[in-house]
C-alpha cells in the first residue's frame, strides 16, 4: 500500500527533526554509556513517513532473525506516540552480559527489554520535550517478543512519522577503566513514532524556538 507523504514534510522539516533527534540521541547514548561503561557509536538520524506495516518490514529486514522490541508510549500536545527499541535477541543477550545479567528465557528477554527501555526512554523523550518546551508524559512500556505480539500502534495514522537512529556499542580503548572490558559487538535501533500532526507541531516549535534565540 502506498501512502503519499504529508505535503508539509519537506527537507527543511526533516533537517529540523533530525537535529532535534540528534540532541536526544546524544543524551540517550550518555545514559547507555553510563550503564555499559562503553562508548556508544551514534548513527545519523533518519526521518521517514511510514505505516505500522513499514515498521514491521523495517524490523524484519533489519533483524533477519527473531523480532524483539519494546514499546514506550508517550503523550505530548494532547496526542499519543510511541518509542520503539528494536533489537536482535543476540544483541539483547550481549547487553545483558554487559550488565552481568542472564538472558536465557522469555522472562529474561522481557526484563532486559524493559531495562534497556528504562535507560533510554526517560532520557530521550524528556530531552525532546525540554528542547521544545512542551509537557511530555511517559505511559506504558510493553515488551514484545515476536511479530505476532506487535500491537497495531499508529495503525490509524497513515501519516505517522518515524524518527529513527541506531546505537552501536564499541570496544573501548582510550580509557583504562574501559580497556579492561572485553570487546563486544552490539547494535540496535531506536524509532520514535508519532502521528504526523504531532511531528509537524514539534518541528515547528523547534524551528520557532531556535529562531527566537537569535
Amino acid at each position: 500500500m502506498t501512502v503519499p507523504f504529508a505535503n508539509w514534510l519537506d527537507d527543511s522539516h526533516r533537517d529540523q527533526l533530525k537535529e532535534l533527534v540528534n540532541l536526544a540521541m546524544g543524551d540517550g547514548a550518555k545514559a547507555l554509556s553510563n550503564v555499559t561503561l562503553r562508548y556508544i557509536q551514534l548513527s545519523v538520524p533518519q526521518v521517514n513517513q511510514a505505516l505500522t506495516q513499514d515498521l514491521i518490514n523495517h524490523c524484519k529486514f533489519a533483524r533477519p532473525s527473531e523480532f524483539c522490541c519494546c514499546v514506550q508510549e508517550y503523550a505530548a500536545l494532547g496526542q499519543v506516540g510511541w518509542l520503539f527499541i528494536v533489537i536482535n535477541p543476540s544483541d539483547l543477550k550481549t547487553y545483558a552480559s554487559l550488565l552481568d545479567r542472564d538472558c536465557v528465557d522469555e522472562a529474561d528477554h522481557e526484563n532486559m527489554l524493559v531495562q534497556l527501555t528504562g535507560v533510554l526512554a526517560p532520557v530521550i523523550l524528556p530531552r525532546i520535550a525540554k528542547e521544545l518546551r512542551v509537557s511530555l508524559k511517559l505511559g506504558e512500556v510493553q515488551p514484545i517478543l515476536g511479530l505476532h505480539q506487535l500491537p497495531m500502534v499508529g495503525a490509524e495514522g497513515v501519516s505517522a512519522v518515524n524518527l529513527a537512529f541506531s546505537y552501536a556499542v564499541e570496544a573501548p580503548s582510550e580509557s583504562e577503566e574501559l580497556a579492561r572490558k572485553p570487546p563486544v559487538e552490539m547494535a540496535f535501533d531506536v524509532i520514535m513514532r508519532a502521528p504526523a500532526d504531532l511531528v509537524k507541531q514539534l518541528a515547528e516549535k523547534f524551528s520557532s524556538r531556535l529562531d527566537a534565540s537569535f
Partner: protein
Amino acid sequence: MAIPLLICDDSNMARKQVAKSLPPSWEVDITFATNGVEALAAIAEGKGEMMFLDLTMPEMDGFEVLENIRKKDLKSVVIVISGDIQPQARDRVMALGALDFIKKPVSPEKLSETLGKFGLL
C-alpha cells in the same frame, strides 16, 4: 584580515545556528561543509584555518576528519560542536587534536566564551 572559517555539519539548521552565534565583530570568511569529505577539501583549499566541526555525519564523521587532519598535517584549529555528550567522545576528540568541545545546541554566549578563552577573538 578575515579568518577563513569552516563550519562543518550535515544539518543545514545547525550550520546556520553556528553562523548566527558568531560574535558580530569577529572578522571571518565563512565556508560551509556538509560532511567530513567536503571539510577536508575546503581545508586543503585554505578555507578552514579555523573550523567548527560536528561529529555524527554521513560520508566521513568528525573523528575521521580529525584523524585526517593529523595524518595529512593540515593546518586547522578545530572546535567540535556536537550532541554526542559522552565523556569518551570529548576525550577522543581532544586526543585527536581538537582545541575544545562544545555541546549542542550552541549559544552565542558559549561560543564567545570559548573563543575568548583561547584568545581567538
